[in-house]
C-alpha cells in the first residue's frame, strides 16, 4: 500500500466532510487561541509590574514611621510621626552600606499659573532622591544644595503639571513662577516623561521641591518627616544595610531591646515579592482559564470525533470490505487528524496572536506572547486531536468488516 494513495484517501475524505473537518478544527482553534491570548495578557502584566517595581530603584530602601505598615501603603492616620530630620542626617553620616538617602515629605497641593490651576502632589526631597529613583531632568536643572540650605522657592515639575498649567507639555516652563498653595515658586526644571505605572498612576503628575522648602513652608510640622528613601551600596548588601539602618534608628529612638520598632523598613525586594505574589496568582488564574479553554476545545474535538464514529465506522467497514487493511485505515485517520490538528493549531496561533495584539492596541493592556504558551497549546491540541482521531479508528479497524458495516 503506497502512502501517497493514503494521503489521497485522507484528503478526499476531509474535503468530502467539510463541516465535520471545520468543527474539529474549531475546537483546536479556540483552545490554542485562548491559551495564547490569556498567557500573553498574564505575562504582559507580569512584566509590567516588574518594570514598575524596578523603576522604584533596584537597591532602594524605604523607611516609614510606625510599625503597622503594610505593602508600602500607609495604614490609618498620618499622625504617627516618629522619624525626624536628624534620623536622615544620621543615616547619611553613619550607615556605610547606604550610599544615598533623602527625606520625603508629601502633600496634595493646588498649583496655579495665571488662570490655570491644577491639583497635584508635591514631594520635598533632596538631590539623592533623583539618583535613587533614576529621575532625570530634560529642561533646566535640578536643585542645588544651596537651594536646599536656603529653602529656596524653586521646583522641578513633571510633564503632566506642565501640560495643565501651560496648556502644552512641550512648552519650556523654566523660569516661570507658579503659585503652590499661594506661595510663589520658580520652576527650574522639567522631569523626563515616565508615563503611567502598573497601578494606573500618572508618574508625571508631580512637583519636586527642596526638602526644607516643603517642610518649612508647606507642612504643619517642622521636625518630623513623612518617610525616608535610601539606597544600599549594592543589591547583595540590601539586607545588611536594612539591619544597619534599623540598628541606628532604634538607637536614636532609644528603644529598649524588648520594644518593637517604631518605624518600618521596606526594601524594593519586599515590594517586588508582594507584587510577585500578586502577579503569580494572576498568572495561575489566567493559566487556569486557559487550561479550561483547552479542555473545552479538547472536549469539542472529542465530541465531533465520537459523534461521527457511527458514520465513520460504516465507512471503515466499506473500505475493509473492498480490501483496506487495518493499518491502511489507521494511517488514513492519522493523516486526517494530523492535518486537521496542525491546520487548526496554526490558525489558532494566528488568531491568538491577533487577539493579543487587539487587546494591546484597544485595551491599552501590555501583552507578551511567549513561545512556551504557543508550544504548549499547540502540542496539547495536536495530541488531543490526533488521539481522538486515532482512537475510534483503531477500535473500528479491529472489527470484522461485517461488524463495522452493521455498526449502529
Amino acid at each position, binding site marked *: 500500500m503506497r502512502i501517497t*494513495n493514503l494521503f489521497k484517501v485522507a484528503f478526499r475524505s476531509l474535503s468530502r466532510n467539510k463541516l465535520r473537518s471545520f468543527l474539529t478544527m474549531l475546537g483546536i482553534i479556540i483552545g490554542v487561541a485562548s491559551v495564547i491570548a490569556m498567557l500573553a495578557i498574564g505575562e504582559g502584566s507580569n512584566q509590567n509590574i516588574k518594570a514598575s517595581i524596578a523603576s522604584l530603584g533596584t537597591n532602594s530602601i524605604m523607611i516609614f514611621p510606625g510599625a503597622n505598615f503594610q505593602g508600602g501603603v500607609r495604614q490609618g492616620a498620618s499622625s504617627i510621626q516618629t522619624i525626624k530630620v536628624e534620623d536622615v542626617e544620621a543615616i547619611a553620616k553613619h550607615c556605610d552600606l547606604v550610599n544615598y538617602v533623602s527625606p520625603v515629605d508629601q502633600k496634595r497641593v493646588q498649583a496655579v499659573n495665571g488662570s490655570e490651576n491644577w491639583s497635584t502632589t508635591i514631594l520635598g526631597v533632596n538631590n539623592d532622591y533623583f539618583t535613587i529613583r533614576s529621575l532625570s531632568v530634560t529642561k533646566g536643572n535640578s536643585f542645588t544644595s544651596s537651594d536646599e540650605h536656603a529653602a529656596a522657592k524653586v521646583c522641578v515639575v513633571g510633564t503632566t503639571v506642565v501640560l495643565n498649567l501651560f496648556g502644552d507639555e512641550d512648552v519650556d516652563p523654566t523660569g516661570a513662577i507658579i503659585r503652590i498653595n499661594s506661595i510663589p515658586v520658580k520652576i527650574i526644571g522639567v522631569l523626563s516623561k515616565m508615563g503611567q505605572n502598573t497601578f494606573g498612576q500618572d508618574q508625571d503628575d508631580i512637583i519636586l521641591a527642596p526638602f526644607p522648602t516643603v517642610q518649612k513652608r508647606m507642612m504643619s510640622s517642622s521636625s518630623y518627616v513623612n518617610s525616608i528613601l535610601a539606597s544600599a551600596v549594592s543589591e547583595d548588601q540590601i539586607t545588611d544595610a536594612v539591619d544597619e539602618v534599623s540598628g541606628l534608628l532604634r538607637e536614636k529612638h532609644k528603644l529598649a531591646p524588648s520594644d518593637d520598632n517604631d518605624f518600618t523598613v521596606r526594601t524594593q525586594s519586599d515590594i517586588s515579592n508582594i507584587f510577585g505574589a500578586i502577579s503569580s496568582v494572576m498568572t495561575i488564574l489566567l493559566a487556569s482559564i486557559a487550561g479550561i479553554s483547552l479542555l473545552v476545545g479538547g472536549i469539542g474535538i472529542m465530541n465531533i470525533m465520537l459523534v461521527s464514529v457511527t458514520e465513520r465506522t460504516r465507512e471503515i467497514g466499506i473500505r475493509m*470490505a473492498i480490501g483496506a487493511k487495518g493499518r491502511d485505515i489507521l494511517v488514513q485517520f492519522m493523516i486526517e487528524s494530523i492535518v486537521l490538528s496542525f491546520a487548526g493549531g496554526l490558525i489558532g496561533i494566528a488568531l491568538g496572536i491577533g487577539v493579543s495584539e487587539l487587546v494591546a492596541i484597544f485595551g491599552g493592556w501590555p501583552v507578551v506572547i511567549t513561545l512556551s504558551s504557543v508550544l504548549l497549546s499547540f502540542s496539547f491540541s495536536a495530541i488531543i486531536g490526533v488521539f481522538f482521531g486515532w482512537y475510534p479508528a483503531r477500535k473500528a479497524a479491529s472489527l470484522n468488516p461485517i461488524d463495522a458495516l452493521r455498526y449502529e
Partner: protein
Amino acid sequence: MTGTTPLIEIKNLTKTYKTGDIEVKALYDVSLNIQQGEFVAIMGASGSGKSTFMNILGCLDNPTSGEYLMEGANVFTRSKNELAELRNKKIGFVFQSYNILPRTSAQENVELPMLYNSQVPAKDRKEKAIHALTSVGLADRIHSMPNQLSGGQQQRVAIARALVNDPVVVMADEPTGNLDSKTSYEIMEIFQHLNEKGITIVMVTHEPDIAQFAKSNIVFKDGKIIANELVKDRKNATELLKNIATLSEDKATT
C-alpha cells in the same frame, strides 16, 4: 466432475452467533463446492442463513468452525491482512444496500479498491474506473454523486467497484433486493455478461424469478443446504429486456 480443483471448497462450515446468553446456530455443517465459471443463486427463506454464509464466503466474517479453500489454498488460516488482500484482488462483493461512500462521485467510489491495490499504477486508475463504469452502462454518470443516482444506478456503481480489480468471483447478497423488476433484470444482464467472460458469480436471492438467471440454484433451510440443482429453463436477461421494450412500444403504438 473431473479432477480440476474447484474455485471454492467449503467443508463442514458452522456459524453460531452469541448474543449474551442466547446462541443462534445460523449455519450447521455446510459443505459446498463451486467450480470456476459457475453462476450460483442461493435461495431460502428469510433467516435461513444465506447472508451468514455469503459473508463468510466473502471473508467479511469469521466462521465458528469449518474449512474454506479458494483455488485449493486454505482461507481461514490466513491473517487479517492476507484476507484484506484476498477481498481486494480476488473477490468483488456487492451488497443489497449498495454500500457506496456518500458524497463521493461514482468515479471516486470505483477508484477506491485500486487505492488499496499497490499493483495498479496511479496513472491507470482513472481509465480503469471509467472502463468499469462503462461496462455497467454508467459512462454518462461518471461524476455523479450517489444522491443524484437511482437505486439501480447506485448498484451498478457498486458492481463496477467490485469488478475494477479483475476479481475471479463476484459475490452478491440480494443485489436486486431493493430494486424493481426491470432494474433487477438489467443487473442480471450485467451478471450474465460477466459470467460469459469467465467470472464466477455467487448470488443470494429470495426471488425465484431472479434465481432463474443463474446456472444452478442452492436452497438453504435452517442453516443447512437442502437442495442443489441445475436451472432447467434458464432465463436470458438480454432477451427478456428486449421483449419488455417491444411490449411497451406496442402499447405505445396501439
